[in-house]
């Protein structure tokens, strides 16, 4: 489900990830809510997957709405490369 070069944004609460999904879908951005990869989240977390071509719009919309993910990663082969800083949100 996550291709090489895809981005994965992990949120720290179910409500935030659902809100983020609604926001991005309303903007008709091509994203998918997926189970957070085990390597990135031990709990039953959720993540939003998006591709490079919509990255500016996705990250811009989340920032504008104050819905920054807790962590973001980029799939690189068999590993996930962390991008950006931690964004702990209440």
């Amino acid at each position, binding site marked *: *489900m996550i291709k090489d070069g895809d981005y994965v944004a992990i949120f720290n609460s*179910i409500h935030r990830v*659902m809100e983020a999904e609604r926001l991005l879908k309303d903007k008709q951005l091509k994203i*998918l*809510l*997926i*189970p957070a990869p*085990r390597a990135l989240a031990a709990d039953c977390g*959720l993540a939003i997957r998006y591709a490079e071509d919509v990255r500016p719009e996705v990250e811009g919309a989340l920032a504008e709405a104050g819905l920054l993910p807790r962590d973001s990663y980029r799939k690189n082969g068999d590993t996930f490369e962390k991008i950006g800083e931690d964004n702990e949100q209440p």
Partner: protein
Amino acid sequence: MSNLDVRGMACPLPVVQVKRALESAQGELRVLLDDGAPRENVKRFAQGRGYQVQEERLEDGIAFTITGPGAAAAPRQVVPAEAGGATVMLIGTDRLGDGPEELGRLLMKNFIITLLDMSELPDRIFFVNSGVLLAAQGSEVIEALEGLGNRGVEVLSCGICLDFFKKKELLAAGGVTNMFTIAESMLNARSVVRL
């Protein structure tokens, strides 16, 4: 040697047909298939189950000669699915669990995508009632259902249900089935997982 021609079939049908043939094949199976995704998916599926695949390039496609991994490693070869070996999943709703609709839909989507990470998969997934919406255009699990199909899971939706929801022409993953097949598969299954 048994022969099978899956050229011209769309994914995941080649994998499904090969899986069925391997379940009933005696000895070698020779499969004619198209290059590209069918070739890769069938090869991955067969090798993943311990079969050896010999490949031959033809003018109009590819030929695989698939040989069994041996009786001990291939219980699926000697136990035809309909004779008691199959694990069947029946999904009768597009939501998982009772509670808020939005959460239920999210959990169902999550469940289906998570199946892709499982080493043991059901042999068949039947979608009935509003479950068929998961296999129709507009569903967010089409990619996951195609992935399951490529790993040999038969994804089948109830025809009556597709008709009821006016989705008959909009089926986007798997095939259409009827109640006879659903009932027979459930009654003959080794185990049935119902959601």
